[in-house]
């Protein structure tokens, strides 16, 4: 996957600059942020994004909200849970990077991983497509969600690349190896659970 970076450097002044920078020129912004990573700023941005996503989900996806246990659960449980998942994700990727011989700062990675979720802000306008009549709205919403997911994944790869100063291919491996291992672990646990019931 080729990711082009812009020459211009975005000066990091605050939330506005970082948010706009991540969305418009992610590589330059991440490079700038990684020089002086601020967990406070990154987590603030992350929490704002998660609040927007939670609200958009609770308002537009009644079924999913009910399955998750109601709006109260969506806000009260998923918010801290998403922070935990972020830290675990960063931790696992950091571990994978070290296993592959890469050197970098966990603080840096965590900060950039938090910022890589910023495109999820577009979940708010995207969620409105659920109200469109017929199947077109659902299809467009699905497509839009998929594009946003890819966007976030690409930013995560850039985050890893900028943190560990590795190639894009290596950064991809660092990002996906933990997920593959987790999938294998889940499959093993499921198999074990089935054996126990027999």
């Amino acid at each position, binding site marked *: 996957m080729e990711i082009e970076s812009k020459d211009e450097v975005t000066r990091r*002044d605050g939330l*506005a*600059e970082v948010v*706009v920078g991540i969305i418009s020129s992610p590589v330059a912004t991440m490079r700038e942020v990684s020089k002086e990573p601020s967990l406070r700023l990154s987590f603030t941005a992350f929490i704002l994004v998660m609040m927007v996503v939670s609200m958009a989900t609770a308002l*537009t996806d009644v079924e999913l909200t009910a*399955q998750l*246990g109601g709006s109260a659960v969506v806000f009260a449980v998923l918010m801290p849970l998403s922070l935990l998942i972020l830290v675990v994700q960063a931790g696992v990727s950091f571990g994978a990077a070290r296993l592959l011989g890469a050197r970098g700062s966990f603080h840096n990675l965590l900060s950039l991983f938090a910022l890589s979720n910023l495109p999820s802000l577009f979940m708010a*306008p995207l969620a409105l497509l659920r109200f469109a009549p017929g199947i077109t709205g659902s299809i467009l919403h699905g497509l839009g969600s998929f594009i946003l997911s890819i966007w976030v994944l690409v930013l995560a790869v850039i985050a890893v690349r900028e943190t560990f100063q590795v190639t894009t291919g290596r950064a991809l491996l660092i990002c996906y190896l933990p997920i593959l291992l987790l999938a294998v672990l889940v499959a093993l646990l499921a198999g074990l659970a089935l054996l126990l*019931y027999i």
Partner: protein
Amino acid sequence: MMNRTKWLFLCLSLLVIGSLVLAVVFARDWQQADGGNIGVITLTGPIAESVGGSLQPDSITPAKVRKLLRLAEEDTNISAVVLRVNSPGGSVGASQEIGSLISDFPRPVVVSMADMATSGGLYISVFADHIVAQEGTITGSIGVILSHMYLGELFEKLGITAEILTAGKYKGIFSERLNPERREILQVFLDDLHSQFIEAVAAGRKVDAERVREIATGEVFTGAQAQALGLVDSLGGLDTAIEEAAELAGVADPVPVDIILPPVPWWEELGRFPSAVLDRLTLALLGKDALILQQQLEKHLIPRW
């Protein structure tokens, strides 16, 4: 550059906040806010007090009907309810409870009979204000059935000796072979349930009880026959039932709204997983016969309409 950045951030913020505000507006009731909705509740399956295992068909339970009617009642935009009934009947107690729930519902209720609304399915329908059935709907079967299985010989084959101790002359009536005396006791019991069914149909359909007794032989009728007998009001499908409900509620342009139970939270789904696995393992290891026996045992001793 900084001004441009701030401007872009402002636009992004407005887009996000604006979207959320619109979502709040749209998330409110889409349908008519003037009480012009007709709630449609689908009731499919046998009537039972509780839901069976994962391999059993979905049941119509009093708890489910209570929740659905409550959802309809809480929605002030719903002026009347159509119950789409497709049921071969089921347990007497559960049918009576559901009948009470329908009878107590404060707004007009119309039943739309689907393929089948026999026995308990008919019982719960008679509490509605109006019944619509297709010409070919199967209905009727006003009667009671009780299955009694004597398992003594099965236990003998399995080498099990069961000794039953009772206090009360007829306490073990369901555990032993039926003799003429026990058979008579059970028949009196069933006759009483039959009378309860007949009285409910007579009251609900405003027909003379003796007339209902004449047709309460357990035979089934088509929708057309049922209309001639006074068990059904009109012939037609769901649309007819919706129009009828709208007329009863005084609604000019009815908008049908499906009333469904919200999905169960993920932890309840997860909680069902072990029993579902066990059901499937039972089926795989013991075979279909074991499952059929289990289902028969569950129906054993419970009188059914």
